């Protein structure tokens, strides 16, 4: 009876999870396998007109990508976004979370909503507002800088300033989500530990370094893994703000893939970019996990 019942339970389990599994298969597994397959073909507009014009080309797409300077430019830009953007976004969201978690703050729910709002607003609408904020002549950012005697910066028009400008926008847009995750973790840190450390004479920085951070280390890891993945997949922000310019300084790897795939319709080559991007994110995440294990975070 018990074996029968167990198989009945297993069957029920399969039935219950089947819708989710089906969705994963249809919307994730099938497209992922198809795009890997696509990356070994020369799918282009000729193949779009007639599938008989499709040829298998082996690793030719990958070879040509590695020899394409724009691919390396996109790769460098993306790595810059990851290396500069991840610490910036993590620090910003942790700071915001600590701010709305502190006991002396009045109207805490209101602040939480206000700081979370950017995350849930439409990206294109906020991009329009940010294009005004970053405007060279009458933008708020340059006005604030002018109060400190700093001359106007052509944020979206100069190849050196465009990357920080996009980062500012991305940071503002995404920190709300990470802030909520951090906030949940911060609320599990026992207040007694913090108070004990304070009585022992530890300052703000020492308490953050030796009490709070070790307690929320797994969350810091989670948030940084999520942020690294998001930074690797940056597309909409440069697409609506700069269209990859000026001088290709904001072409990210995903933007490059979009141009290969949908501007030039080299879907084979675009799929190869997607697969290389997947390998990059996988590698970085594995390294992060290894480091975290060694550090004892998980």
């Amino acid at each position, binding site marked *: 009876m018990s074996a029968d019942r167990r198989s009945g339970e297993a069957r029920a389990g*399969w039935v219950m999870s089947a819708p989710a599994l089906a969705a994963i298969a249809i919307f994730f597994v099938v497209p992922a396998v198809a795009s890997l397959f696509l990356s070994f073909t020369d799918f282009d507009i*000729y193949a779009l007109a*007639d599938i008989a014009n499709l040829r298998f080309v082996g690793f030719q797409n990958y070879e040509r990508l590695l020899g394409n300077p724009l691919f390396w430019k996109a790769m460098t830009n993306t790595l810059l976004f990851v290396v500069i953007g991840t610490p910036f976004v993590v620090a910003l969201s942790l700071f915001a979370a600590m701010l709305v978690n502190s006991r002396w703050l009045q109207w805490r729910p209101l602040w939480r909503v206000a700081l979370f709002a950017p995350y849930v607003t439409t990206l294109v609408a906020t991009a329009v507002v940010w294009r005004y904020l970053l405007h060279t002549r009458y933008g708020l950012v340059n006005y604030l800088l002018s109060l400190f005697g700093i001359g106007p910066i052509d944020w979206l028009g100069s190849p050196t300033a465009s990357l920080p400008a996009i980062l500012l926008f991305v940071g503002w847009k995404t920190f709300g989500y990470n802030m909520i995750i951090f906030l949940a973790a911060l609320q599990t840190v026992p207040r007694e530990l913090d108070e004990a450390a304070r009585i022992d004479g530890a300052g703000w920085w020492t308490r953050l370094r030796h009490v709070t951070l070790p307690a929320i280390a797994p969350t810091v890891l989670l948030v940084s893994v999520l942020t690294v993945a998001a930074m690797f997949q940056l597309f909409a922000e440069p697409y609506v703000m700069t269209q990859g310019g000026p001088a290709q300084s904001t072409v990210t790897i995903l933007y490059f893939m979009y141009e290969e795939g949908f501007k030039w319709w080299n879907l084979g080559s675009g799929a190869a970019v997607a697969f290389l991007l997947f390998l990059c994110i996988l590698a970085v995440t594995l390294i992060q996990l290894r480091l975290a294990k060694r550090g004892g975070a998980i």
Partner: protein
Amino acid sequence: MDLTRRQMTGALAALPLLPALGACGARGQDGMTIWAMGNEAASLPALLGSVGRPADAPRVTVQPLPWTAAHEKLLTGFAGGSLPTIGQVGNSWIAEMAAIGAIAPVPASAQGLLEDQFAAVVETNRIAGRVWAVPWYVDTRLQFYRKDLFARAGYAAPPRDWTEWKRALHKVKAGAGEGNYAVLLPLNEYEQLSTIALSAGARLLRDNGARGAFSDPEFKAALGFYKSLFDEGLAPRIASTQISNVWNEFARGFFSVFLSGPWTIGDMKSRLAPDMQGNWGTAPNPGPSGTGSAAPGGSSLVVFAGTPHTDAAWDLIARLMTPAAQQEFHTLTGDLPARRSVWNEAGLAADPVIAPFATQLDHATALPKVPEWERIVTEMQIVAERMVRGQYSIDDAAKEIDKRADRLLEKRRWMLERGRAL
């Protein structure tokens, strides 16, 4: 048994998606849709109201597309089977749309629409012996120049022949003062070099567009002339992104000649200071011996393949192409009409700023009509920029452009061998 149940569950779970599938058939059966871009899309509804269509003709809806997304939209529309009935298509995209079979050629009954047009523009739309689109409005690129600085150098207008033109530029530069140049040729734009190449008579591609012809003596002459303008200090070695305001720099005398199209006329009138308004003019491009050439541009009207409204669509296009409709279209948008007779009626032939465009269009040459062309010129310019910066000699640059073009055309050669390409 176990499997079927799972399949059934999967099918049940997918049920809510069914209405989404129904939405895929976007092509409406009851009316016609026109895809148009920018300014033209904005004024098309007004124009449609005045062309006087028969009462029983299908209802027409205009869907505006932004220029920046139009090309992608046309291709995804083809891939998804959701193209409308009529479309405005940039002349340089027609080869691509014809190659994939997205558009239908102009039928015998509509051949009359191709008369009273600029020959080079119609030629741009002729692929494999058939015309695929009706030119709607035209443009091309020619010189905008500083009249006062040329006058100070002793010229009423830029000379039409390369040697004389260069001599004039040297004098203009000498008069413009320290730190200024004569001509702006942004290193990240391919239009300038392709205009020079067309003026030199280069054919650019050979063997029915299967291989690059960049090692031809004509193209090398163009490369040499382009390089000499930088080497002799007539053009600054900069990209267009380094010029934050073209009109300011033009007014300042940083350069006295630049290449652009009719869309710049409005900008010149609104952005240059009132006291500068008498100081600029337009002139046809120079060539090795006499007036040079340019690539004909503009947009055409196409009827997409497989539409149920073919006759009604061509009837509508015929109505949009009548001289009266073309004149109203010019009034609404400022675009230069495709029909030559309208130029006289609208007073364009007598306008000193616009008349040179007609001269230039009479001296225009169609660019190669292969879908890969835009990628090829992009590569051409990357190599040309390196040549100007001293990384390649003229011969090496020509060889390198040929190599890159041949690689991009590999698929086309394969298609041609099998008789599958147009």
